[in-house]
């Protein structure tokens, strides 16, 4: 790929980085990344990856923009209320950087479509708000040997880990989804808006590190932070031989659509 003068100028702050350079920027421009969920985490992830020039960004989300989303989902603006989130996201990405090809999926990721969709991408980013899809992304990526970034936020806390084939997966740490209807799984628990930006930008940085091969990914580690104390911790983890999907005797060999908590389904309906 030969960069034009305009592109060299646009990406100059990456190109100036010794670890990235023209070569690294080319890798970014050739990268294909799928963002699952165009919400609190998906918004900063999409904005930064678009600005960075990631060649193809896929966005999957079955929701429309709700007024209550605007407190943190910074890719959506007030006039976007009631617009599909994938369309609102695509419009902003196109305005930021026309180098980026955006592929939208106005639907939910399910056991039926997950493998088919993710196979088109180099890296998958979890920006979803519920456990059924978080486990689905993990299982699909482990089965398809696809690297991904897990992200979760709740109230004042965030956590993230990066998976590459062979490293500890989400299920190595969190065996199976918590029982449905446990309060903090619900989107109603509340979240400090800026937390989404704090975690989403860490995930975006992981994507760029993966594409360029720079640095050490958050593999075999989980990063957690609490914004009340502003304490960050990185906890070492290990591949778990008893992991139901990547252990030596896997019990999860196909994809599963886990049951959603009732309040989540209701909030999805309300948003429709």
């Amino acid at each position, binding site marked *: 790929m030969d960069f034009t003068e305009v592109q060299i100028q646009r990406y100059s702050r990456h190109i100036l980085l010794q670890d990235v350079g023209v070569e690294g920027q080319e890798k970014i421009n050739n990268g294909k990344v799928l963002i699952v969920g165009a*919400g609190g985490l998906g918004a900063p992830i999409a904005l930064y990856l678009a600005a960075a020039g990631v060649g193809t960004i896929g966005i999957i989300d079955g929701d429309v923009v709700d007024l209550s989303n605007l407190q943190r989902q910074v890719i959506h603006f007030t006039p976007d209320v009631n617009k599909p989130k994938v369309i609102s996201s695509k419009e902003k990405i196109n305005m930021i950087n026309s180098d980026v090809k955006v592929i939208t999926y106005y639907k939910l990721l399910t056991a039926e479509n997950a493998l088919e969709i993710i196979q088109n991408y180099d890296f998958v980013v979890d920006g979803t*708000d519920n456990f059924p899809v978080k486990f689905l992304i993990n299982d699909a990526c482990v089965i398809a040997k696809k690297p991904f970034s897990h992200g*979760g936020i709740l109230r004042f806390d965030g956590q993230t880990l990066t998976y590459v084939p062979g490293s500890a997966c989400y299920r*190595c740490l969190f065996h199976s989804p*918590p029982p449905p209807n446990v309060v*903090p799984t619900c989107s109603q628990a509340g979240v400090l808006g800026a937390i989404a930006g704090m975690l989403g930008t860490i995930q975006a940085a992981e994507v760029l590190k993966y594409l360029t091969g720079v640095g050490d990914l958050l593999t075999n580690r989980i990063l957690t932070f609490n914004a009340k104390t502003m304490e960050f911790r990185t*906890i070492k983890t290990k591949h778990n031989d*008893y992991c139901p999907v990547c252990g030596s005797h896997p019990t999860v060999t196909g994809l599963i659509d886990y049951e959603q908590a009732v309040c989540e389904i209701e909030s999805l309906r309300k948003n429709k």
Partner: protein
Amino acid sequence: MSKISVNGKIQDVNTPISIIDLITQNNVAQPSMVSIQLNGQFVNRDDYENTQISEGDEVDFLYFMGGGQ
């Protein structure tokens, strides 16, 4: 009293103590929302009662975080 590490902070506890008792002692409101690592190794939920913690052990409580939207 023995010193153990819980989430990176030193705690004095009477050992031996089972994981389930340590969870109670740390006022974890919803034990079903926490995953436990002992010295970097995931502990199966079925083993919380019969896994004992001793001096110098490092325990991490990893909480389920389902948000993202």
